[in-house]
């Protein structure tokens, strides 16, 4: 059974701009899926529909069996607890340490502190930032910030990991390390969806690719 499925999904923004037109696809659990396309093709919009950051104007978005397009606002936090989100603009909090940034998803779900701290350190270790746990994110390099963002996304052990342009503004070496990290998550059963316009990792990994062109699947 598909863990994410879109059927005839359209998204029209207020003002009439149609970001997605009649998009249908499905993703199996544990799959590694790349979404490519020129900028403005609707990649980010597609990912936002999965996390209920935006709502579809037509069609059905199913995530882990739940209809996200018709989901009540109160249920959305519980949907998101099952997702790991990595953003283009990272959305890190600069008023606290790297460790506290990673702790946030666990505190929000009311995890016992000791266990949460253990898991946060494990996540930081996985992305190679354990020695920098006391550092303020602003003092980290671009690649490190992106890895911190990934640590925060996986600390809750989500079943779906969603990344929007995770390698943008990183040099090739860093980008490869990040993509390798995502591949290792998909190998342990996490479904990974990555939106990117960078075709290097696609050539390297030969994953399944969805290509968007002006809001439609090519």
């Amino acid at each position, binding site marked *: 059974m598909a863990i994410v499925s879109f059927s005839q999904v359209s998204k029209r923004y207020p003002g009439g701009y149609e970001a997605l037109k009649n998009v249908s696809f499905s993703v199996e659990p544990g799959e590694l899926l790349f979404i490519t396309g020129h900028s403005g093709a609707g990649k980010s919009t597609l990912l936002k529909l999965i*996390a209920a*950051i935006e709502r579809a104007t037509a069609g059905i978005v199913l995530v882990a069996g739940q209809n996200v397009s018709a989901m009540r*606002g*109160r249920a959305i*936090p*519980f*949907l*998101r*607890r099952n997702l790991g*989100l990595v953003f283009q603009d990272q*959305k*890190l*909090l600069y*008023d606290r340490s790297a460790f506290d940034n990673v702790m*946030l*998803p666990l*505190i*929000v*779900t*009311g*995890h*016992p*502190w000791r266990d949460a701290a253990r898991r946060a350190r494990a996540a930081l270790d996985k992305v190679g930032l354990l020695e920098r746990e006391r550092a303020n994110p602003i003092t980290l390099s671009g690649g490190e910030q992106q890895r911190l963002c990934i640590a*925060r996304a996986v600390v*809750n052990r989500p079943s779906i990991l969603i990344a929007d342009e995770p390698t943008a503004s990183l040099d090739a070496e860093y980008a490869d390390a990040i993509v390798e990290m995502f591949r290792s998550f998909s190998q342990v059963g996490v479904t990974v969806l990555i939106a990117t316009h960078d075709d290097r990792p696609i050539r390297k990994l030969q994953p399944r690719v969805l290509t968007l062109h002006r809001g439609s699947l090519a």
Partner: protein
Amino acid sequence: MIGWLRHHWFSFTQTARRLAANPLASLLNALAIGVALTLPLGGYVLLVNLQHFAGSAATEAKISVFLAQDATQAEIAEVQTRLRATPGVRSVEFVGRDAALAGLKRTPGVAEVVATLRENPLPDAFVVTLTARDAELAQRLEQQFGKLQKVVHVQADSAWVQRINSLIGFGRTAVLLTAALLAFALVTVTFNTIRLQILTLRTEIEVGKLVGATDSYIRRPFFYLGALQGALGGLAAWAIVELGIVLLNRDLAVLSGLYAVDMRLQLLDSVDGLAVLAFAAGLGWLGAYASVSKHLYQIEPT
């Protein structure tokens, strides 16, 4: 349940840390609220003291009952028994018309006038002392005595009690009005503080929503902030009023010495003080609630 308590404790410590991180602004906010609350609280304290003072300074309330000129000895005795038997009456004193005239003759200035009278125009009278200084009781008995046989006029000496009570009633209304107005001010101040906090913490709110924070989780620290700020304001008001009383008492001590009466003002007792804290905290919570309802939903991750 434990997870829920942990949430609350976490929110609370986070809120306290945020207040402590900005001590000057927090202090000024608490003082602004405190000064606003000082006015009704101070008024209340003065009223309580006035009531207390009036209660301790008052002699017993008395009612004079005047009898008809043609009342016979038997009828007078009958009225006296009736008066004595009435509940709420402590003692009944008979003042005969001759005794009353003699009393008038001793009064300077009136004596000359009284001397010109050919016969005694004064009626026999009773002076009834009541058990309690209670305006309502006095009024009720006044009417009741007026209906007795051969009683032509009843004069309550408790009119001043009524006057003081209505004055206190007036003061209470004034205090309530200022309290209501300034409670509104407190809610407004909190509303604004919370709005600023929400704007400051915009990114944190967005990120919280993205990692699965529920609305109540996000709202909670702001409620705590409003309540805590209100309580601090209440504490400030309490301190200001107590300080004011201490200062006033220093001056009153001199007056007390001159007039040989104890006129010290009572300090606010701890029950009243805690009630003020709870009231201020409640209003802060209310302001936070209004602000959060208005502003938090405008922040959604994009």
